[in-house]
């Protein structure tokens, strides 16, 4: 019998790998349950428009769409579970003002990850909806730190930024936020300089963007520049500085918190605070999270929302 070729970027888990994956998954579920979160299990497929609400083409670019003969419409394999949770919270769980939810399931990306070649992730995450400001953010960052510790990562670090700062710095630019975020993600002053050459932004904004590209956007830098850009920048800076102060005092010994204004989200549906998690011995970000109030509005229920997620496969 001929052996079927494996599918690009997809693989099976069995034996030790499968049992480790489940063991870690259940360990994390216990942490989330203890913190008062409950599980939500969305389907593997969604209507494409539901997945891209508030996320624009950042998700559509990674979404596999197919025709559904039973429903006579198009369906999409989820590339990310957060928009599904947003949909469920906005349309199915309206009786609750505050929702503490977690999930763990497979997602599939349309294109293989440039580095690992993988198109599948076992996305696991926590979403805290209905609580604005610090309270929600501190809780999810606490759980992010606990999750990394439970998985055995040593010296976890959360780098925290704020999309409001990037938006305020690039206000008035005709270049899309996506392009700015891409440039920032490379942390290359030369590339930033090339981009700024055609931009009609105030010099102080350009200097700030150059500093971010050079990796200088830490807490000291932010405190110095907070009131020099514009009102939106000052508000976001104040929010971030205050949040980090609170998180640092609450999570002492649990996780190291660093302000890094150039930290950017995995998908661009985040509109407030954003963070990425790192640890000794891991060569890439272990988790991504942040506030995505805007996406909830797009689903028809304006409510604050914050959370984080990670790929359980990559944590083994």
């Amino acid at each position, binding site marked *: 019998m001929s052996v079927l070729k494996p599918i690009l970027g997809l693989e099976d888990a069995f034996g030790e790998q499968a049992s480790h994956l489940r063991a870690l998954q259940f360990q994390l579920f216990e942490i989330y349950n203890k913190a008062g979160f409950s599980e939500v299990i969305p389907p593997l497929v969604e209507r494409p428009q539901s997945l891209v609400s508030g996320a624009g083409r950042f998700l559509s670019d990674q979404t596999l769409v197919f025709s559904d003969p039973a429903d006579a419409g198009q369906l999409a394999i989820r590339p990310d579970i957060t928009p599904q949770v947003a949909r469920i919270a906005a349309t199915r769980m309206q009786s609750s003002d505050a929702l503490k939810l977690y999930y763990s399931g497979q997602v599939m990306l349309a294109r293989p990850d440039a580095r690992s070649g993988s198109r599948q992730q076992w996305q696991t995450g926590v979403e805290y909806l209905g609580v604005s400001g610090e309270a929600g953010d501190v809780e999810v960052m606490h759980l992010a730190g606990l999750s990394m510790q439970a998985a055995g990562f040593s010296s976890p670090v959360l780098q925290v930024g704020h999309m409001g700062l990037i938006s305020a710095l690039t206000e008035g630019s005709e270049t899309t936020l996506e392009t700015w975020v891409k440039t920032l993600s*490379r942390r290359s002053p030369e590339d930033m300089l090339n981009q700024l050459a055609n931009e009609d932004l105030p010099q102080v904004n350009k200097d700030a963007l150059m500093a971010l590209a050079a990796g200088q956007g830490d807490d000291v830098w932010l405190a110095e520049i907070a009131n020099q850009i514009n009102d939106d920048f000052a508000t976001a800076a104040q929010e971030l500085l205050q949040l980090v102060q609170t998180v640092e005092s609450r999570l002492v010994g649990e996780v190291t918190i660093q302000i890094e204004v150039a930290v950017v989200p995995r998908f661009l549906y985040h509109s407030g605070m954003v963070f990425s998690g790192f640890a000794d011995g891991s*060569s890439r*970000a272990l988790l991504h999270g942040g506030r995505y109030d805007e996406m909830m509005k797009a689903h028809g229920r304006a409510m604050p929302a914050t959370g984080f997620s990670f790929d359980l496969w990559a944590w083994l």
Partner: protein
Amino acid sequence: MADMLTIALSKGRILEQTLPLLAHANLTPIEDVQTTRKLMVNGPVVDGTQVRFLIIRAADVCTYVEQGAADMGISGRDLLLEHKPHVYEPLDLKIGCCRVCVCGPKALVEQGKPKAGSRICVATKYDRLAEEYYLSQGIQAEIIHLYGGMELAPLVGMAERIVDIVETGSTLRANGLVEETTLYDISSRLIVNPASAATKRSLIKPIIEQLREAVQRRENA
């Protein structure tokens, strides 16, 4: 403090220009890395952390840094543009300066650039850069990947153009080729693994600043 900080360096000509910059940041390898056959050489101990250097092929530096086998490295911008690794590029070291150019036989180049809608064969080791450029020009390019000696391809009729690094242009001239277009100015960049930038921030940030100062000082000299 971390146990180890690993810096990947390119073998060859760039290494010679890199060493004075490293010396300014007090990061001198304990052995002569230009003559040793070792691929891994220790450097100083900085704030209790042992620094070590990997001496590897230029094309491999971004892979080592992206995979986290090295925390930092020095890589040509051509390779970063071609491979788009997930690394930070915080500093242009302004060494190893050259250009990525489209070149071709003199007679062909004098006839003008290929027209939109035309089809040509292009020999290069920069498949992605060549493809992106010709797509942007509306030209259907068949990319022929070569590992070196691109100049030969037009001479034997295998390609109409090449996309390659040009430094002085002497190899081009010796083979009857001329430059048609410069695609990118190239120099060597300091690259940093994003996770290392977070977990070893207190070690890496001062090194970047010292190297920045060394580059500035050399530029002003």
